[in-house]
């Protein structure tokens, strides 16, 4: 649940407190929106260091359930307003991308992708 993710990451909630009971099973991390569009899956959590309006637009298009900004980055009011309108909760964690992913993975949040073999990428079933 998003509530647990918030605790594990000692994250602040920037918008979307009403979604704290949302169930999230998969996580993905990227600063590349191209990759989010190509490799994420519906309902996944997105961890990113990329802070702009396109992050929210992309999250909405790709059915990302919630976005976590790493390294203590705080979204601007404009970004929060857009996320609120699109009903995407935004969190801000003090941890680095590496540590945030490690914490969530070790607590059982699954990846959206299988390992890549010889240049091919397969989505998890």
């Amino acid at each position, binding site marked *: 649940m998003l509530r647990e993710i918030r605790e594990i990451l000692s994250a602040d909630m920037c918008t979307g407190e009403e979604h704290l009971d949302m169930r999230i099973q998969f996580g993905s991390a990227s600063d*590349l*929106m*191209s990759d989010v569009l190509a490799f994420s899956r519906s309902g996944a959590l997105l961890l990113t260091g990329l802070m702009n309006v*396109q*992050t929210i*637009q992309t999250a909405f*298009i790709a059915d990302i359930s919630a976005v976590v900004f790493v390294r203590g980055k705080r979204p601007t009011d404009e970004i929060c307003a857009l996320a609120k309108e699109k009903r995407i909760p935004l969190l801000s964690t003090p941890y680095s991308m590496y540590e945030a992913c490690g914490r969530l993975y070790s607590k059982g949040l699954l990846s959206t992708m299988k390992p890549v073999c010889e240049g091919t990428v397969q989505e998890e079933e």
Partner: protein
Amino acid sequence: MSASFSRSFTIEGRDFLNAGRASTQIKTILKELSVDPAIIRRVAIASYEAEMNVVMYATRAKLKFTMSASAINLEIDDEGPGIPDITLAMQEGYSTATSQMRELGFGAGMGLPNMKKNSDEFVIESAVSKGTRLTMTIYIN
């Protein structure tokens, strides 16, 4: 449902502020029509990738969205530089994006292959110095 439903949008090149608006509206329409969420996601991703390419590389475009009982069709017709080598542009990883576009999180060279992956029918035509036309169809059933 009635025979078909259609909407047209205009996309302006370089307009990063409004980039994604047309695709967002299409997604909202499809949600209201209670279309299968997996189909909505594919349509939205294909449309957004095409929209971002217009914003990044072209001058302007018309996006036509049509929905019938059996399929959703997206037609993106742009005025712009065109694509000299379509085979090359279709390869994963090929990109001519500038550093500004990369800072926004784009320019991995994944867009065109991703549009093809998400559509059931994908046609790309381009004329250098004139423009590019993409036609994508996603079956509903």
